[in-house]
């Protein structure tokens, strides 16, 4: 577990501890992965530091656990999601189009990672 400043957070990082605001309202649960939008929300709540899963190693390098999406995970997740409806040719078309869109998002660094 590593404490990181809010500006050091990156999408895909996973929370090691739940984050609460000053009134102790739960903002994000432990084990949630961060997205651009969630980091932005934490900032707007005035959160300065959070605990992220990962380990500090020697020479100042840090290894983070992260749920990063790849072309393969996109395909696998889509197939599982569409398993019951894939006999419908229109749904098959939607699945293929969705796969292309999700891959486009992947290569665009500005696009937030919406996965949980």
């Amino acid at each position, binding site marked *: 577990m590593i404490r990181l400043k809010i500006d050091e957070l990156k999408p895909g990082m996973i929370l090691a501890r739940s984050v609460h605001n000053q009134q102790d309202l739960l903002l994000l649960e432990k084990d949630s992965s961060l997205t651009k939008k969630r980091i932005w*929300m934490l900032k707007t709540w005035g959160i300065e530091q959070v605990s992220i899963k990962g380990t500090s190693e020697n020479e100042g390098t840090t290894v983070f656990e992260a749920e990063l999406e790849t072309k393969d995970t996109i395909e696998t997740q889509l197939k599982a999601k569409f398993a019951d409806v894939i006999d419908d040719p229109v749904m098959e078309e939607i699945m293929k189009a969705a796969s292309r869109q999700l891959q486009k998002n992947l290569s665009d660094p500005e696009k937030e990672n919406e996965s949980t």
Partner: protein
Amino acid sequence: MNPPDLDRIISRVDDLPTLPRTVLRITELVNDPKSSARDLARVITDDQVLAARLLKLVNSSFYGFPQRISTITGAIVLLGFDAIRNLLLTTSVFDLFANRRKTSLIRQEQFWDHSLGCAVGAKVIGNYLRYDKVEELFVSGLLHDIGKIVEMIFLPQVFKEINDLVKDQNILMIAAEEKILGYSHPQIGNLLAEKWNLPPKLVSVILHHHQPSEAGRFILEAAIVHLADILCRSIDIGYGGDNKMPALDKTAWDNLRIKPQVIESMLAEINKEFDDISLFISYSP
């Protein structure tokens, strides 16, 4: 006849949240052919929060007006009465639920994103079909799953059981609801929509978004929201409560007359518009 639990919710219908007085008053004015833009402006400016939001929204990239709109009357003239009513309904509805502290922010946020994604999706599909009242579609998309919020608030224990069943068996939320409750979120949403005296079209979309072919004269609107739901789920916009795709209603799909080849460009547009608007009307508890 309604299943017993649904009757229990109906018996508590008076406990269901009510809309803010201003929005009710605005609905009355919009329905009254004699009211003017000035009447409407007066009611809106009385509510500073609503007024500020309205100006923020009309000046957002979502509407894309070239000039800055600085007065409420200006916004009303540009957008029209119905659009204003829908906008205010949009921004008010989620406030009602946001004040509840029973669920964590993350769950509410993801639900909000799913609803907002469907709203954007319905608007994009509506534009493609040259539907003349896309704002109505936007609100329909936003509210289609409102029954799930009622479950979250009124049946927290059952809601948890439903979610556990969804996870255990990897099924659609509506299937888990049927197994546990014997009815599902469209019927619950229908109750709330009727209590709020929402327009019949909106009530019908909420009730029939899983089987739009049963929506009678509102089949087109219900089919649009049905497809928007499927498209948003396919590209992971928000989280509708499960990781499965609902079956496409064949009759409704045929009714839409959309060529499968255009789906990809629709998805791209939904994706982009969702990003643009989500920061403007983002979920803020």
